[in-house]
């Protein structure tokens, strides 16, 4: 009998895992039918891989402005495929290394923002009454603050560095996620299966952990890709306005250097175009992925394909 008992116990766990695998497979299959999302994912994977492998594939010493032997502000040539910057460093190399900074900040700021937003959203929706009122009041307040000005202020107040930029973007952008998560949590909490679970005797931890979070997380995940896109744009804007980390130039930082050295008026297009195109490609890919994921994961949008 003992053998008979352990077998179903294992099968109970394997049922749950098989279900998760199956659900993931279904999401992947539906996602793969969205051509835009698939292309976005592939391009992103390549870019992330290249950025991670930058120290292996390129020589960091070539970034050093004092040892460069290339002429400054030189149009594209065989030595520097995308020309050189004001210091004579290859723009291609700058962009390659800048991708690391832009992506790192984009991901970290998005994670911070989504974490705060999800926590506030779920708590505000699950616990009604005054805690919810206060949390929503706070969300509304942050929502009306001009995010860019707030981020500028934060970035100006705190010591310069990547951490500051991440914090500034994260703190300025969480309310949208909080609103989304709150709305989604409220719809989930209105479902009868929550009532059933409550009638079975479930407490807050069980309801949130077993029902609310699993239902909200896919949407949060889709939302995160969109937040990453926004964070990368926000980072580039902040760097462009001069509050970035000058020691490790991101794409926005490269653009800022180009703009302040007069590249726009001198027609040094090779200095201005590539970093911007990099931002557009990465942001577009994240957006395409996010939209495709949203369509697959958000049942409300599913009817629209």
């Amino acid at each position, binding site marked *: 009998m003992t053998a008979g008992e352990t077998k179903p116990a294992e099968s109970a766990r394997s049922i749950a895992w098989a279900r998760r695998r199956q659900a993931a497979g279904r999401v992947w299959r539906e996602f793969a039918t969205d051509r835009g999302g698939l292309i976005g994912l592939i391009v992103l994977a390549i870019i992330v891989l290249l950025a991670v492998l930058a120290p292996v594939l390129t020589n960091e010493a070539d970034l050093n402005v004092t040892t460069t032997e290339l002429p400054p502000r030189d149009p594209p040539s065989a030595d520097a495929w995308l020309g050189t910057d004001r210091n004579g460093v290859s723009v291609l190399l700058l962009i390659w290394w800048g991708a690391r900074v832009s992506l790192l900040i984009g991901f970290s700021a998005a994670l911070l923002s989504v974490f705060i937003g999800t926590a506030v959203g779920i708590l505000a929706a699950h616990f009604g009454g005054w805690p919810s009122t206060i949390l929503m009041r706070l969300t509304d*307040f942050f929502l009306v603050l001009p995010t860019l000005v707030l981020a500028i202020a934060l970035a100006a107040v705190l010591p310069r560095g990547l951490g500051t930029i991440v914090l500034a973007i994260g703190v300025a952008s969480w309310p949208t996620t909080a609103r989304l998560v709150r709305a989604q949590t409220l719809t989930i909490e209105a479902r009868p299966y929550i009532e059933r679970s409550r009638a079975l005797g479930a407490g807050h931890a069980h309801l949130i952990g077993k029902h609310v979070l699993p239902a909200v997380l896919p949407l949060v995940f889709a939302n995160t890709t969109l937040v990453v896109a926004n964070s990368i744009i926000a980072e580039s804007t902040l760097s462009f306005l001069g509050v970035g980390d000058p020691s490790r130039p991101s794409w926005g930082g490269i653009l800022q250097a180009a703009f302040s050295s007069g590249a726009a008026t001198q027609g040094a297009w090779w200095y201005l175009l590539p970093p911007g195109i990099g931002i557009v490609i990465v*942001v577009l890919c994240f957006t395409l992925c996010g939209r495709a994921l949203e369509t697959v994961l958000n049942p409300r949008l599913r009817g629209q394909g």
Partner: protein
Amino acid sequence: MSEVLTGAERKLDADDGGGGARGAGLVRFLLGKLGGALLSLAMVVVLGFLLFRMIPGDPVVTMTKGRPVSAEQLAELRERLGVDKPMWQQFIDYILGLFRGDLGTSYIFQRPVADLILERLWPTLLLVGVATALAIMLGLWFGIRAAWRRGSGFDKLSTGTALTLWSMPQFWMGLLLLIAFSGAFPSGGMRYPDTPPDFLSQSLDVAYHLVLPCLTLTAALYAQYLLVMRSSLLEEMNSEYLTTARAKGLRDDLVRRRHAVPNALLPTVTLVFLQFGMVLNGAVAVETVFSWPGLGLLTYEALSGPDLPVLQSTFLVLAAAVIFMNVLAELLYRILDPRVRAT
């Protein structure tokens, strides 16, 4: 049987006929919204004050940058600006000043901040106003058509364009336009110094300078409005009342114009107002690129100081604008949607 039934129906009639209650509801709604807005504003004032005071740097040194000054002069300047007082004293002075319309004196420009703001306000209003109006028209028009013919070539093209524009940092879009049209249009500022002072010449000159910044901001905003309009119309298109309208024998474009679009416009219009903060973000970036002398450029200039009184004032003004737009959005939604009106 009939007595009970009419009782039940009468109860329903009583439920929906409360005209007086609705009027009272509106007043309560208005007061609630205004109260919330004022609370937000008060929080902005406090936050603005504290935040910018934390920026490192001595304002007096900033002001006298590059000039030889004695220690006595510095001390006198400190006293005049009130930065030698304790924080709470400064805060009270600041609040009292706010009520008198006194926002302090700019460290960089050496002028009253209130004057500066007023001077810089209308270029921003002009830029944001024209760009938003254009963006709304374009965005809604393209969004409606893209949604109605979902999956068509038109939809793919316009949505693809919008997504690409949406993925561009606005300042970079400005830089591109600057490179492309630097010969045909002025690259910065709002007017040439040598323009004749008459109204027509001045207006034309401003309009000429406005083209590039306005184009940049419009392109960024229209993309967003298009995407919002498209998705809200797509959502509305699953509605059953559209089947009713079709069953009535309405032409396809009448179904769209008369039934689907008015319903889909509701969330879109609200969102346009609610996302006003994004518009301002765009304005800061665009004004910086094109040296358009508005509040955004003022913020950027003040940042280099840092010019505390200016920074906290632009922060306050921009936040107040978003708060105002939010209240407007709530009001508008209530006016437009009978369902909200009744509750």
